[in-house]
């Protein structure tokens, strides 16, 4: 093994991979949320945005592949770490309370991650796959609105966005700690930013299904 692969397979190396990919995924979520919010402009604005993305041609595909790689690396390393760490205490405690001293979001990082992975698969299958490979000529706006009128789907979507918020609440400040970017002046800001991001994404993504669910019930 070369020095780089050797370094990335140490305990800190793997965490660095998680931190860097995690922070990049947070950036992606900003772009995603901003894109989603074109839906407030109505069907034509949203559709124009979707077509606008596609108009980049091959460049869009390169971005899609990079994004997929980002997700896959974060998922692969996350699962790998979860499995490896689960083997580090073969004989469990009869009473274990150290976990009760820590933040809720920190206790279940890989578990929330697995839930988000489940969401990702369903999310891609219901929106992306249906748009790209479903019946020709159906606009994404139509697919999205139809799904969000389903209360079970909307509830699932909202619960998973809350899960995403919990994941980011721990993950954001954790990434800074792993990269060694801590400082008595800035670390409190980093933690507050993480909490803010958790609310922005948790609530921000949820607003769309909430809106479409209620408008489908006869409001506007």
């Amino acid at each position, binding site marked *: 093994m070369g*020095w780089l692969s*050797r*370094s990335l397979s*140490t*305990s*800190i*190396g*793997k*965490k*660095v991979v998680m931190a860097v990919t995690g922070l990049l995924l947070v950036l992606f979520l900003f772009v995603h949320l901003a894109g989603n919010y074109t839906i407030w402009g109505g069907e034509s604005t949203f559709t124009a945005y979707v077509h606008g993305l596609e108009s980049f041609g091959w460049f869009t595909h390169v971005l899609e592949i990079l994004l997929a790689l980002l997700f896959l690396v974060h998922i692969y390393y996350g699962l790998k*770490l979860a499995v*490896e*760490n689960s*083997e*580090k*205490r*073969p*004989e*469990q*405690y*009869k*009473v*274990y*309370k*150290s*976990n*009760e*001293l*820590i*933040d809720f979001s*920190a*206790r279940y*990082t890989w578990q929330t991650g697995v839930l988000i992975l489940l969401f990702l698969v369903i999310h891609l299958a219901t929106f992306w796959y249906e748009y790209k490979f479903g019946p020709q000529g159906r606009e994404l706006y139509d697919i999205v609105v139809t799904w969000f009128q389903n209360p079970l789907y909307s509830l699932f979507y909202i619960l998973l966005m809350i899960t995403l918020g919990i994941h980011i609440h*721990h993950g954001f*400040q*954790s990434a800074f*700690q*792993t*990269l*060694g*970017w*801590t400082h008595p002046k800035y670390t409190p800001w980093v933690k507050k930013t993480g909490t803010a991001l958790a609310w922005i994404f948790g609530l921000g993504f949820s607003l769309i299904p909430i809106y479409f669910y209620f408008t489908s019930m006869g409001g506007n």
Partner: protein
Amino acid sequence: MAEKINLTLNIWRKESPEAEGYFEEFKISVTPDASILEMLDELNNDLEAQNKRPIAFESDCREGICGTCGIVVNGHPHGPIPKTATCQLHMRNFKDGETLYLEPFRAKAYKNIKDLVVDRSPLDKIIQAGGFISVNTGNPPDANSIPIPKETALQALDAAECIGCGACVAACKNASAMLFVGAKVSQFALLPQGQPERYERVQAMVNTMDEMGFGSCTNTYACEAECPKGISITNIARMNRDYLKAKISSHSMQY
């Protein structure tokens, strides 16, 4: 003397490293002035008087500075009172009629040898890999001949407060030794005397930590909450920072 309290103890017993462990129940009456180790001493006196096998546990200084003792009491390494080593944990912190579970530090890297005794030599192996500074022998240098800012000296002393008891590993859900290694890396990284070996040291110690079978850090900070000396997780961040710097800029291909 305060009135005695009655407790039910569930103590982890294990006859040999290979034997299966189990919990044994004891009903005892103890003075609230006793530490948990003194309570075990009393219990052992009774057991020996009855020709039964006494409970094996480790202790040395019994004043909270050597890092030898370490029992998980009711799910907390060194017990439920913050910044207190097992030997300094007094029975007045428990109520009459309470049930206590006494378990050894559990981790893949710590072999449970007997009852509450575990082999923590993997921590020593990490120190041997780089937890030292090399100095030329000769006359002792003048005190204070190397200027060190007060703030830096305090941070180094805070890191050096680590007694190496290994409770961080016992507390961590991943049985990670990052707080211990972070403290041991930091106490040298902060001071001029630690600079020549600074970046070799952090890589060697982290590699050995991984080889010894400790988990990786998930930044839950349970270690900091349970540490009897209150070692800060900023030491882990400093180690991560030094490790990354070493990886990126070191010319050596060794690690």
